[in-house]
């Protein structure tokens, strides 16, 4: 009798364990589009920007306005740090889950699109909204389907602390050589960091955009659409200029972005090449004020630059696709875009709605960023879209090698070219 009871318990346990295993197997994705938008529900929205001081709250307030348009809907934020964003979202989607709506950095988009992780957005917008879309939205088409729309395009420029520049007696640099010598002068004259930009592999994804500024700025490119051009003459010149700046004696060696941004905000750094959103955050605290900062286009001969592009897309695993589509439909209306252009200031957004004049006046440095945006390109490698992360690792490892071991720019780029060509297709 006792044995029977033990057997029964063991059997129950085994059934429970099997059920547990079955549950953890991951779903195969949603089979339908979920309830109609009018029925409402909860939309999970993944974005690292929720964590950005000041700006995150503004963006969330703009997003939350959808709840007034559709009172049956609730937006729930999913906060993931920038450094862990792609990895976390990939893992979630790979296991059959993930957020309903997500912001997608450009280099991440091809991988998501190729694996069928994004819901097509064709035909969901009003005709007026469709017409107002910037041409840059075409970047997010994949095999004839619109899988994302522009969330924001963040331009880059060179910006500097006017007080430090005048203390050091240097003029805003117009060439890469002047940038390196100005950095050294600032360091020597004021004891403060002259110039800094990302330069370490533990910030690989954002460093790729930062470094691409130098390549595009020198008229280079990562590929010609068919072949990789990592060791082209322009790319080698860009790497050489980057190395000279690093070795100038005024470079903030070892400082990661969060460190040098804090230092810039505290008035401890002279010049930085970074994006407009980061600069806005830096001048929004108690330290350096916006009026103490000036900006200019990148001091490189080609005039080009990279932009940090981010799309908004719907997870194909979502159980609330209809509601998510309704959110994006609302977001692309003229009224909502006016709200978003303010919340995402100073970035460019999906339509060409203009930023409020008072914000532009309060941050006069923004003009240089807007000027640079007109001549900027994505950091996804044409023809090698899904391999961009692997090529990125190879190139940046060689750049780091160049910075720290004394090999020349030519040697570094040659090595990167050779390794990248050997990547499995």
């Amino acid at each position, binding site marked *: 009798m006792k044995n029977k009871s*033990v057997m029964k318990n063991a059997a129950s346990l085994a059934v429970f364990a099997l059920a547990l295993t079955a549950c953890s197997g991951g779903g195969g994705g949603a089979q339908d589009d979920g309830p109609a938008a009018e029925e409402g529900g909860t939309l999970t929205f993944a974005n690292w920007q929720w964590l950005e001081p000041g700006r995150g709250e503004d963006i969330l307030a703009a997003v939350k306005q959808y709840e007034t348009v559709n009172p049956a809907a609730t937006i729930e934020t999913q906060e993931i740090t920038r450094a862990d964003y792609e*990895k976390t979202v990939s893992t979630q989607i790979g296991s059959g889950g993930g957020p309903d709506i997500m912001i997608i950095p450009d280099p991440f988009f091809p991988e998501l699109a190729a694996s069928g992780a994004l819901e097509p957005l064709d035909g969901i917008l009003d005709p007026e909204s469709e017409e107002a879309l910037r041409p840059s939205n075409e970047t997010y088409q994949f095999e004839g389907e619109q899988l994302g729309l522009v969330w924001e395009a963040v331009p880059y420029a060179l910006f500097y602390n006017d007080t430090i520049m005048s203390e050091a007696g240097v003029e805003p640099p117009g060439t890469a050589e002047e940038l390196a010598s100005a950095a050294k002068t600032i360091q020597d004259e004021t004891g403060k960091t002259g110039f800094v930009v990302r330069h370490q592999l533990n910030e690989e994804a954002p460093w790729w955009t930062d470094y691409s500024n130098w390549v595009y700025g020198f008229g280079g490119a990562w590929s010609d659409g068919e072949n990789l051009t990592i060791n082209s003459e322009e790319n080698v010149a860009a790497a050489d200029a980057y190395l000279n700046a690093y070795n100038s004696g005024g470079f903030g060696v070892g400082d990661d972005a969060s460190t040098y941004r804090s230092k810039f905000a505290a008035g401890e750094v002279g010049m930085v090449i970074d994006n407009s959103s980061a600069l806005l955050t830096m001048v929004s605290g108690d330290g350096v004020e916006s009026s103490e900062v000036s900006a200019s286009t990148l001091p490189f001969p080609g005039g080009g630059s990279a932009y940090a592009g981010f799309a908004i897309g719907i997870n194909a695993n979502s159980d609330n696709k209809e509601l998510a589509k309704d959110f994006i439909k609302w977001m692309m209306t003229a009224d909502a875009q006016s709200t978003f252009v303010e919340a995402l200031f100073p970035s460019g957004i999906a339509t060409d709605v203009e930023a409020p004049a008072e914000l532009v006046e309060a941050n006069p440095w923004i003009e240089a960023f807007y000027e640079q945006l007109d001549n900027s390109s994505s950091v996804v490698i044409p023809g090698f879209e899904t391999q961009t992360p692997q090529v990125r690792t190879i190139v940046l490892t060689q750049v780091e090698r160049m910075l720290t071991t004394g090999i020349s720019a030519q040697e570094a780029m040659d090595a990167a070219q050779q390794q990248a060509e050997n990547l*499995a297709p």
Partner: protein
Amino acid sequence: MTTHAPTRDRIPTADPPPRNKRRRFSWTPYLFIGLAVLYLVLFAVVPLLKGLDLSFTDTRLLNPTGGTYIGFENYERLLGSGAFFKSVLTTLVYTAFTVVASLTLGTISAFVINRKFPGRTLARAVMVMPWAVPTVAVVLVFRWIYNDSSGVANAATTALGLGERGWLTDPDYGMFSVVVATVWKVTPFVMLVVLAALQSVPEDLYEATRVDGAGSYSTFKLVVLPFLMPTLRVVGLLMTIWSFRRFEIIWLLTGGGPVDATTTIVIDVYRQAFNNSQLGVAAAIGMLGLVLSLIVTAIYFVLELRANKQNGANA
């Protein structure tokens, strides 16, 4: 007259169990063992087999069930490239330095705090703190210490006239910096275990050696060390395995850089899986890493067996 030597009374022995009495069968022990087996199967064997299976596919992170079998292609690629062997070498170097340094420092610290001195309890608490501090906090502190322009490490070397070093930016110093941070974090564990072993040495043995006129070195060699050796071997094995698979402190400090100077096997697995989304390649690296761990464990057991045999022969 015959005398009989006094004989000790026989000690009564317990009656042997009746041979014909059958032992009653019970499922209970099987249930207890079954639970442990189920746990191991679910959380160790199945993931291991799944990992092995993945290593023969071209599975990608975003579609973990959509990979196709490609035979030994992942292994061929890894074994045909220098990068994998470099990460193996980096792992061995990191492990060797971490284990030797933490065992040495941990043992010395244990001896120090085993002695009686005023404030010993406080000293013990302070020395255990690094083990209790979360790794992320340790990394933040060390990143500040190692900062090229404003870090304490460069301030110290400059004051000593040694100039500045790129602790986290120069490939020649990257491994050193990571090992120092790791040793600082893990040494208290060694110290605690060795301290417990030291306290189990019977006081009579110390007294006996004192009576015999043995000096400190002889006491250590003949009394303390034999007691410590089994503990040190086990701690050594644990530290070795933990060093093989340590991730967070290396990743957060250097991300595997500068220039792959600290890219251990685990860092390589993470990069392949989450940066490059190549789960198949990552699983293959993991499997080769597992083989390496098994070799180390096998070496440990061979040494342990030899030591036991030697002890048996000496006894």
